């Protein structure tokens, strides 16, 4: 029997009224007396369910509605319409029993006291979340070791680097061992080494606590490494919900054929097999990259081997980020 969903979203809508200013000084003067408003459908009738222990990636362009959805799930925003249940609670009720079981971490916002060492915020959160002494000690030690920040706990937050601060933010948000994590761009602004460290940590936290995690990120590496399932949102609408690799089946029209030739082959010759993405000669090496329709890939590869001096041939799926980029750019949703 599959586990019960712990996050249920049904026909969720969140609309905002946005003021539209007319250009120029006259527009500003007119706006003193009369203003035009436009309704922005930040989230427009989306439904999904998430089971305990799942790590789900929210993918979408800026303004697609990802953060708005997370804010509704956290009880920060009142939904315009629809039903939302997280851990059996209506988030908007903001019951302490609910709030003690989740954490919202936004990469661009922080909760650490700027003028004091991070340890003071940890102790404050211990009091806020009513964490017993032994659990606090245990969780703190575990998190500090996992993130390797023991030596910076008593340094003023304002003197820490962005990566060190983000690690401390994570500790502050996880000291009460939340079952549900909403991570909004947790790796934003971090260098690649720190991004990797945070991803490893999130993965370890999910495995150790069977925590349910929703993650939004502009870095596809975050999503690829952490999430089996992805939800794609575009202009407030849900356009894909499924296994990450299914995005390829659904949206990738082509496969990539990488070729190495033993002697020069003209571009014109290659064009009859598919779309030539790359064609170059590097010293004595002749290489090319072709895009061919997925269904014909095997047959085209066979023809290439027969007709051209192919030394090496590789058939690859296009990278997910390229597919998603293409989906959004073409509006083919």
């Amino acid at each position: 029997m599959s586990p019960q969903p712990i996050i249920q979203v049904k026909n969720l809508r969140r609309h905002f009224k946005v003021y539209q200013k007319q250009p120029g000084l006259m527009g500003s003067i007119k706006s003193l007396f009369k203003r035009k408003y436009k309704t922005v459908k930040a989230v427009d009738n989306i439904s999904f369910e998430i089971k305990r222990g799942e790590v789900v990636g929210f993918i979408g362009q800026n303004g697609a509605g990802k953060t708005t959805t997370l804010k509704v799930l956290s009880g920060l925003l009142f939904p315009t319409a629809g039903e939302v249940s997280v851990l059996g609670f209506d988030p908007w009720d903001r019951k302490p029993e609910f709030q003690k079981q989740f954490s919202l971490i936004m990469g661009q916002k922080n909760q650490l006291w700027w003028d004091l060492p991070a340890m003071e915020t940890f102790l404050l959160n211990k009091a806020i979340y009513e964490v017993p002494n032994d659990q606090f000690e245990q969780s703190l030690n575990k998190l500090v070791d996992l993130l390797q920040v023991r030596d910076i706990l008593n340094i003023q937050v304002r003197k820490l680097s962005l990566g060190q601060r983000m690690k401390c933010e994570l500790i502050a948000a996880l000291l009460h061992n939340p079952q549900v994590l909403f991570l909004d761009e947790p790796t934003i602004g971090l260098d690649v080494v720190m991004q990797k460290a945070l991803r490893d940590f999130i993965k370890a936290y999910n495995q150790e606590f069977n925590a349910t995690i929703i993650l939004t990120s502009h870095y596809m590496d975050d999503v690829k490494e952490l999430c089996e399932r992805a939800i794609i949102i575009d202009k407030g609408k849900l356009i894909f919900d499924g296994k990450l690799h299914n995005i390829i089946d659904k949206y990738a029209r082509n496969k990539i054929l990488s070729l190495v030739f033993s002697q020069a082959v003209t571009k014109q010759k290659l064009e009859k097999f598919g779309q030539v993405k790359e064609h170059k000669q590097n010293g004595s090496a002749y290489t090319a990259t072709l895009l061919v329709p997925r269904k014909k890939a095997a047959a085209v590869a066979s023809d290439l081997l027969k007709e051209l001096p192919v030394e090496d041939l590789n058939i690859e799926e296009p990278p997910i980020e390229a597919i998603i980029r293409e989906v959004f750019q073409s509006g083919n949703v």
Partner: protein
Amino acid sequence: MLNFRFKTYWKLFWKFRKIHLMRTLEYRGDLYFWSLISTIWTLFSLLFFDLLTQTGSIGGWERHEVLLLIGVFSILDAFTWSVFYHNMREYTRAVFSGEFNQYLTKPINTQFLIMTQSNSFNNFPRLIIGGVIMHRSLVALNYQPSFWQVISFLGLLSLAGLFIYLVWFIFATLAFWFEKLDNINDIIPSLRQIWQVPRSVYTGVTSLILTIILPLGLMTSIPTEVLLGKASVNWIIYFVVITFICFIFSQIFFKISIKKYSGAGN
């Protein structure tokens, strides 16, 4: 359960005080400077009213009665600046910047967090000065209030603090309705002079507005009158009732307003 939560809130209240004391001590120059400014301000205010009352009374209040009221005002004002100003400023800033998320996701009453999370220690000398002025005025008046008068005075002074907080909170909550209100937290400070004088100075329409409709004129007068044993029971009852009405209104207004929170960007 309730007892457990009370302990949590009590602990949190002092935790915040400790954090702010630590923060204040990080910037000692700032602490010295602002303590000096607030002390000078109180002494000038005292000097002004001392000069004003040397030739007679204000609104039927004798010189030392007025000075007693100034002492009460100093204590209330020091408290207002120390607690409300910092918290309200932080509250509205958080709403405009979207950092209000931090208050809403914590398993603690949002209004408790708003009201207690911040404070300043710069006005501490003013509290002492206010107490000294009160003591000296009572000695000059040769008046010894009874134990119950002192208790009633403290209760009504707390109620005055609550009323000022509620009115300020209602104004600050307008932050949910507008994209920007820079001077939203200057409204109440700019009205402080209203309760720096006895309520009897207000007559006619001004009295109707400042002692009945928006009774800011009662804030120091009623507690001082109680201490002097010349308070009217009707005014005390009105003071309690209007504070209660204001409390109910502020709660309803907050609940409606919070639905307008958009979290600054999505």
